[in-house]
């Protein structure tokens, strides 16, 4: 640094630093405006006594924990929180089993495999509200494809009231969401299976390991990190499902399919109780953010590489 060229080199370096900051600053500004500010404001809102009139002002009267108390004392909110857990774990279970089975299928090479892989991602690309509407059509009692299949197979005697029976409607959102998430699991697990070295698989075959043993003792341990990331991302995607439920059941019948997201929407935008909506939002946010340390740890590869960047 104390060579004669130290001066100009330092200024070139400073110029580069400045350029880096300029390239990055719009993104930082955006993150502050579109993520940090709304999250902080949402916390403030949850402690305020809001009414439609207070929306026009920056702050409303302090409410302490009233909004949280109201939310946790309201059976519909409590049910929505509990149901969000059931929905999330049910979805992940179905998505993982089906997605893993399909990933294993695709990893065997067979005619048409490439085409099948490219078509399997179709559900992932649809607008979510459209997926909800599609399943509303399929689950109709009269003229719905699902009832028609069940009737034709003789599994039921009369049309099942999927969308009208509060005990059955939950299954419609679960089935639709599993359908929606399977391609994500399939593609990620498939690409992980591709990374398992062929030599290892061959060695296991020579050693006389059966397919089930190979899967359980060899393949699953190797791809475990990807399974963990996939389940974690699946969890955070599923707790925030909204459009699908609105399009399929609208949270009904009799609030039997309300999740945290849909009930929070209802509190804020239907009855204009933004304070309670924000309180429920914070429950959801906490649920999602619980995962963030684990997610950051699992993604530590992408954080570490940053130190290796050129200066």
């Amino acid at each position: 640094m104390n060579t004669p060229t130290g001066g100009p080199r330092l200024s070139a370096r400073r110029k580069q630093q400045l350029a880096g900051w300029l390239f990055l600053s719009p993104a930082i500004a955006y993150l502050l405006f579109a993520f940090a500010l709304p999250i902080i404001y949402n916390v403030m809102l949850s402690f305020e006594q809001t009414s439609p009139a207070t929306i026009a002002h920056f702050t409303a009267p302090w409410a302490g924990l009233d909004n949280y108390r109201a939310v946790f004392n309201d059976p519909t909110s409590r049910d929505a929180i509990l149901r969000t857990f059931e929905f999330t774990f049910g979805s992940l279970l179905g998505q993982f089993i089906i997605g893993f089975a399909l990933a294993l299928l695709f990893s065997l090479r067979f005619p048409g495999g490439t085409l099948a892989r490219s078509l399997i991602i179709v559900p992932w690309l649809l607008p979510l509200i459209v997926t909800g509407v599609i399943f509303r059509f399929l689950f109709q009692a009269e003229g719905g494809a699902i009832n028609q299949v069940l009737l034709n197979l003789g599994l039921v005697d009369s049309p099942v009231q999927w969308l009208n029976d509060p005990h059955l409607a939950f299954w419609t959102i679960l089935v639709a969401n599993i359908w929606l998430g399977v391609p994500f699991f399939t593609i990620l697990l498939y690409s992980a299976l591709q990374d398992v070295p062929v030599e290892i698989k061959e060695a296991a075959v020579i050693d006389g390991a059966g397919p089930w043993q190979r899967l359980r003792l060899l393949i699953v341990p190797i791809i475990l990190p990807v399974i963990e990331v996939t389940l974690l991302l699946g969890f955070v995607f599923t707790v925030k499902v909204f459009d699908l439920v609105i399009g399929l059941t609208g949270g009904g019948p009799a609030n039997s399919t309300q999740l945290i997201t849909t009930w929070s929407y209802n509190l804020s935008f239907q009855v204009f109780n933004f304070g309670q909506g924000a309180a429920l939002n914070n429950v959801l946010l906490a649920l999602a953010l619980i995962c963030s340390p684990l997610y950051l740890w699992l993604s530590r590869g992408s954080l570490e590489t940053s130190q290796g960047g050129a200066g």
Partner: protein
Amino acid sequence: MNRLDRSRPLRWLCTFAAIAALALVLFPVYAIIVGSFESTETLFSGTFYWLPHQATLDNYRTVLQGTSASTQATVSGSQAGHILTSLLIGLGTTIFALVVAVPAAYALSKYRLRVTVIVVSALLVAQIVPSIVLATSLFIIFHWIHLVNTYPGLILADATYAIPFAILVLRAFFFSLPNELMDAARVDGASEWTTFRRIVIPLARSAVITVAVFAFLAGWGDFIFALTILNGSGIEPITLGIYSYLGNYSTDWGAVMASAVIALLPAGVMLALAQRYIASGLTAGSVKG
């Protein structure tokens, strides 16, 4: 010979299993495409037809002209304007996301900045934040700064889907560019901006396309921000249009499905034109490192 190679019949069994799985996965989409060509009478007959029963374009006419041919149900308004609105939102989200994300990703991979780890962590966490949390606050914040019911407001909100994803995917790509490339340009006297614009962006074309496809689909398919930030007068994208068709007492399924099929078109076009970009984006965005 590879010991893992399957016998011929077994391979065909796999093909058969894959066809069965695909049939289940694609059936819902097939069902609304068929449904969108059915007459209202067929749709209200209480029977589901596996093939078009009496194929008609009436539903598309209803949707595009805004007048219902059916007597059993009414629909509100035409979707033609909504399609244009959704295209504008999709394009706006794409452009905005690229303008913010491409330079940021470059800075986060090729410049040694003190904030890199913090910003990358923030981007990873941002992908986790549920949209309803942002929507509730943004509605009120937009209320003060007069962005409710405007295109810029909606695009700012829709970019929350696209920007964190875009920066992370592009950053992973920029790591693959050799630093010598930029150093050579600098030695030749190119400014940082010129290096970025003339050397880096052209090389990043495929990653930019991947990100653009996802940003467009995010803006086009957004429902939650449209539902909260637009107040139902003036701007109405097709996702809201479909929702308002459903809101009627008796749903005109023909019109709903014709609009749903129209809403699927961009995904179909992208899948056909940019398939390899979509597959690479799906994996790149999710598992890194």
